[in-house]
């Protein structure tokens, strides 16, 4: 499903590379002991070094290093046992040091790979160029006072992982799938919350276009700080069309930094090349090169959780799920865990998938709830499936029970018991209902005998109605056939 943009001069394809800034899950900042907790009062989480007080020095937080290595392993990437922190120099009011401590030519993690699962069931590999650790800046607030700006340094110095992809994506959909997959991996690893709306995962998109069939890399534009997967996809679509327009009108694209305006659905220039910063990177003399041994990496490796790709394979193998179904389940670890609990307790993976992926997810989506907020526990859903499997209730009744469970959160066994919803398997009771119906509808009996067998279904429906749905439908059918044949 290649993404081709038809232009006036021919077909074009888009070349996309993404830079993701992922906030590291860690109690303290990258180089200070200040807390990273969200929602504190402005400037409450600021150590002297975060405010760049004179003479203050950074000291690396080992947890952040472990998290970066863990992420690198999750991205099947090369771990660099020696990396170097460098200063990226620029002035801004929310950058107290006048430089950001980052990594430049010697990052902690090198090349890796992410496998994308596309909606059509195909998969695609996207290369990771590098991952490096760096400090976040503070926050400037310009809308409190007409002429003054306010600075909140709570975020200043919080650890970020900048994860840079290779220019391997060819459509907005692939860019979207990449972000979702990356977020999924980060969450599985517990190294980033991956919440783009809250800003703990941010994305810059590098976009260029080229005629289909060409291998050149044309001038790219960088769209900065887009804050949702949807906006990233929209921004890429817009930007690609803009490039094609420019080229087809004989113009040329300038390398520049652009912003996406989600209200207008367009990108616009933020900083042209002439005003590009010269960051004057150089190794930070306050920090020694970051070095660790293979044992440090191994200790992290042995504790890696099962990641989405492996879990998907296992779900397909262990529970007989399709690639698509397994892919949907593993995208969020919590969903996968919920499913697996239901599958294990009920002993039926396929039914578990039906109830979780179809019934439960559609309700949760409609109510905008996460799996953690599900009104039905995994244990109760497994019990419901068990009731279906042991013929206590029919599939139809099960849906009613499911609805009651949604409302009440109660145990399905209790619901069935209390409301007398047990399937009637007592032949006598069903037989009486059948006899009554046959007696009351001699015309229809005659029609069936004349060959209009479809009417048997009408009788089954009537029996179910008469028993408030509790009759075992298979048993009804069987009885009816027997009586009509007499």
């Amino acid at each position, binding site marked *: 499903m290649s993404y081709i943009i038809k232009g006036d001069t021919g077909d074009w394809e888009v070349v996309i590379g993404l830079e993701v800034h992922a906030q590291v899950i860690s109690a303290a900042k990258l180089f200070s002991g200040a807390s990273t907790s969200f929602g504190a009062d402005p400037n409450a989480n600021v150590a*002297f070094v975060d405010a760049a*007080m004179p*003479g203050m020095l950074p*000291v690396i937080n080992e947890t952040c290093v472990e998290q970066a290595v863990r992420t690198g392993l999750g991205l099947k990437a090369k771990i660099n046992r020696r990396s170097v922190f460098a200063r990226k120099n620029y002035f801004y009011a929310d950058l*107290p040091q006048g430089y950001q401590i980052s990594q430049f030519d010697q990052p902690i993690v090198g090349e890796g790979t992410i496998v994308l699962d596309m909606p059509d069931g195909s998969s695609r590999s996207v290369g990771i160029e590098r991952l490096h650790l760096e400090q976040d800046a503070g926050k400037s607030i310009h809308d409190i006072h007409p002429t003054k700006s306010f600075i909140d340094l709570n975020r200043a110095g919080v650890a970020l992982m900048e994860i840079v992809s290779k220019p391997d994506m060819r459509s907005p959909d692939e860019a979207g799938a990449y972000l979702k997959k990356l977020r999924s991996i980060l969450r599985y690893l517990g190294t980033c919350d991956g919440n783009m709306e809250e800003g703990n995962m941010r994305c810059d998109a590098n976009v260029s276009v080229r005629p289909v069939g060409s291998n050149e890399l044309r001038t790219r534009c960088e769209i900065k700080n887009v804050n949702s997967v949807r906006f990233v996809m929209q921004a890429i679509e817009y930007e690609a069309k803009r490039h094609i327009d420019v080229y087809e009108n004989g113009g040329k694209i300038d390398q520049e930094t652009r912003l996406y305006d989600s209200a207008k659905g367009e990108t616009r220039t933020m900083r042209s090349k002439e005003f590009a910063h010269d960051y*004057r990177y150089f190794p930070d003399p*306050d920090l020694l090169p970051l070095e660790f041994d293979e044992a440090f990496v191994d200790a992290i490796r042995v504790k890696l959780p099962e990641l989405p790709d492996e879990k998907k394979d296992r779900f397909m193998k262990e529970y007989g799920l399709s690639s698509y179904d397994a892919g949907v389940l593993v995208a969020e670890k919590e969903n996968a865990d919920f499913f697996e609990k239901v599958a294990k307790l009920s002993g039926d993976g396929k039914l578990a998938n039906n109830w979780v992926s179809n019934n439960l997810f559609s309700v949760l989506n409609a109510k905008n709830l996460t799996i953690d907020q599900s009104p039905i526990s995994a244990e109760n859903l497994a019990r419901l499936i068990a009731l279906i499997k042991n013929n206590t209730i029919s599939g139809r009744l099960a849906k009613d029970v499911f609805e009651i469970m949604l409302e009440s959160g109660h145990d399905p066994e209790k619901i069935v018991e209390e409301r007398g919803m047990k399937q009637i398997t007592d032949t006598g009771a069903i037989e009486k209902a059948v006899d009554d119906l046959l007696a009351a509808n001699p015309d229809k009996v005659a029609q069936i005998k004349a060959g209009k067998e479809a009417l048997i279904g009408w009788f089954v429906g009537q029996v179910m109605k008469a028993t408030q749905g509790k009759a075992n439908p298979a048993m009804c059918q069987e009885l009816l056939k027997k009586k009509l044949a007499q």
Partner: protein
Amino acid sequence: MTDLTRFTIAQAREHLRKKDFTALELTDAYIKAIEGHRDLNAYIVETPDLARERAKESDYRIKTGDAKYLEGIPLGIKDLFCTEGVQTTAGSQILKGFVPQYESTVSQRLRDAGSVMLGKLNLDEFAMGSSNKTSFYGNVKNPWKAKGKNDDLAPGGSSGGSAAAVSAHIAAAATGTDTGGSIRQPAAFCGIVGVKPTYGRCSRWGIVAFASSLDQAGPMTRTVRDAAIMLNAMVGHDPKDSTSSPLPMGDMEAALGKGVKGLKIGIPKEYRPDGLNAEVNALWDKGAAWLKAAGAEVVDISLPHTKYALPTYYIVAPAEASSNLARYDGVRYGLRVPGNSLDEMYAKTRAAGFGAEVKRRILIGTYVLSAGYYDAYYLKAQKVRALIAQDFEQAFQKVDAILTPTAPTAAFGLNDKITDPVAMYLNDVFTVPASLAGIPGSSVPAGLNSDGLPLGLQVLTKRWDEETLFRVSQVLEDAAQFPSLKG
């Protein structure tokens, strides 16, 4: 009563222990001496009340038998060390009125050892200078005068306030910092002892940064023994400074008196350029002769990359400084000159807050790190720096210590018009190589020139070998019989 300020630390400590006088009496003597020497402009801030308070605490501990290592010793602290509750300016207008809420690790260690802080000592702005003329708070005067003249002389720099205070007996000792010679050169100009330990010995935490890969704190004292005592109290691993070494140093006081018998002393030929001041040259020979007389073997050595040290230093140090000084932006502390935009506020604040020499180095540093110049300047300088360090490593395979002059001249006049900054930079030509290599160095007052002004000799040893540094320094001191200003 005898003038208590004439005692060395070692002597004063003994007298305090024997209760010949109290810490408060000693401190009061220094406070009075400071008042009498305000013309030197050595102190930016005097803290007599704080000093008396701490002296009383010392007396209490002496009384209860809890006296610590430097109990009751009155010290001056270079105003580059952040001191809790006491203004810290780095000699710059941009930090005028800045009062830290924290104490630098080194000054905290000295405080924990029972010493008494007399005040904050003047320095070249952000430690950039060799004369103390770049201080926003006015230049310091050297307590020494040329024979028969009354012209004011430069104390050297950047630790000029520290050197002048120790020399004039208005501090028993002082802290200094040395980036390219800022302890050793002023020590030589003022006739005192200055020691720059191995890079990584003293924590840099809480010291206003000039060039992080070079900055190192050290003691400035009247005797080699006092330097050993001070350094013992100043060093130690600090987890708050990633470049601070976990290697323990050992007791330097105990190293004294071991002599130099059997040691090999190197004389580097590159330190004897054509036109080297004849008196400096002669003193250097004399120093070598003293060591030989004390049983050392003196050999000629070569440090072939010496001539590249100064240009290398004037790329590396400004590069780091340009970045280190970016934080002085008027946003959070210190001087702010308002503007109509953020950029205008930055420009006005930094234009007003920094002096000419600091601006020059920020510009040089920004230039050498810029795209297109980085490889030719900064990267090249780092490679040369490695070669200079390698020169020393190879030399120390043959010798135990190196002897050189500390500075090419004695103190120059404060009114001498030095308009060429490079001429000023040449003051550090002998001290800069050791800074680039991170090795320890000392300056020991070794004699007077024909004008009656002090000249210093520099001792260098390999990394972490302060012990040899002190052994050699003490032999030089014993031989020189250098006259203190107070006899």
